[in-house]
């Protein structure tokens, strides 16, 4: 199948989105968001792959050989580290919400619109 990685990425997106929508605990929402993010990594790396290509390190292979696309790898590499920190920010918000409202259930957060 020529587009199997993209189908897996779409599956991960939908499964992660289901996890976000149907969670009863805000921490579960944040963890399912991680799965959604990894779907984007998969799409990017799948687009940049060349059949028979090697990793873009030219330390020990001859210069004209077939390599995979390095630009998408740059995007995914910084993205992986930055999203960990953004998720830390989301978890800090969850901790703060728990302190104010007393629960981490998203359905009970509505009580604070006053």
């Amino acid at each position, binding site marked *: 199948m020529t587009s199997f990685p993209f189908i897996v990425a779409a599956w991960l997106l939908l499964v992660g989105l289901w996890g976000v*929508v149907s969670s009863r605990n805000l921490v579960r929402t944040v963890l399912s968001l991680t799965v959604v993010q990894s779907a984007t990594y998969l799409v990017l790396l799948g687009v940049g792959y060349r059949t028979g290509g090697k990793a873009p*390190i*030219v330390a020990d292979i001859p210069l004209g050989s077939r390599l995979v696309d*390095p630009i998408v790898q740059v995007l995914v*590499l910084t993205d*992986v580290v930055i999203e960990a920190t953004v998720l830390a*920010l989301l978890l800090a918000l969850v*901790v703060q919400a728990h*302190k104010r409202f007393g629960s981490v259930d998203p359905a009970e957060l509505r009580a604070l619109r006053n």
Partner: protein
Amino acid sequence: MSRRFRIGLFALAGPGLTAVLLIGMHGLPAFGHLHAVTGLLIDRIEPHLRHATDIVTALNFDLRAYDTLGEEFILFASVTGVALLLRHLRNEDESRQDVRGIEEHRFGGASPSLRMTGLVLIPMMVALGAYVVLHGALTPGGGFQGGIVLAAGPLAILLAGRYLALRRVAPDWALESLESVGATAYTLIGVGGLIFAGVFMKNFLPLGTPGKLLSAGTMPLNSIAVGLEVTGAFLLTWTEFFDQALLVARR
């Protein structure tokens, strides 16, 4: 909104999203047949241009260094947000006690073998992290990866059961300074490119021979700056979360 409402909304929108995704992915070129040209061009010409053997790090810290500046400041901003939220939390409680008043026995169960393992692991992780950061331009590695490995070094003190020792080794002001020094150094190297070579973020140091440690101009310096910042950021995040979770004094 209640859970049932959310699930109902997802049941309505889900099939539409699936259809759009599948149609969109059908339009992509087949897996393995790349149509983009810029990446292949960079593969071919980059070792001549910048004398770096790791093309991904060369893109990260030199050819697309401006994007990395933006990403680095996203990191900085999120960690500032975490620190702001959790310190506000800390100041609201009155149990912000003097650290000396905390008893150690809360971490009971840290057997001597665990402490010995932690002691052995710390220099290994710091050395590995420094190696990964410095060899960014030569082998897979660079500032982002090496920064987290470096941050895992002092973390072994926590895992060996002595959180208070970690707070003495890595107090708040040291981590904040580390992070700020990293971010500022990266920006100053970019400004150095503006001063010495006329273009912001241009590589202005001599390029050297590919394969040696001091090659590829400003790339090792950028890598070290990002490594410092990522180390400070992750250690600050971990200690902010752990601080009030573990340091509660007995009333």
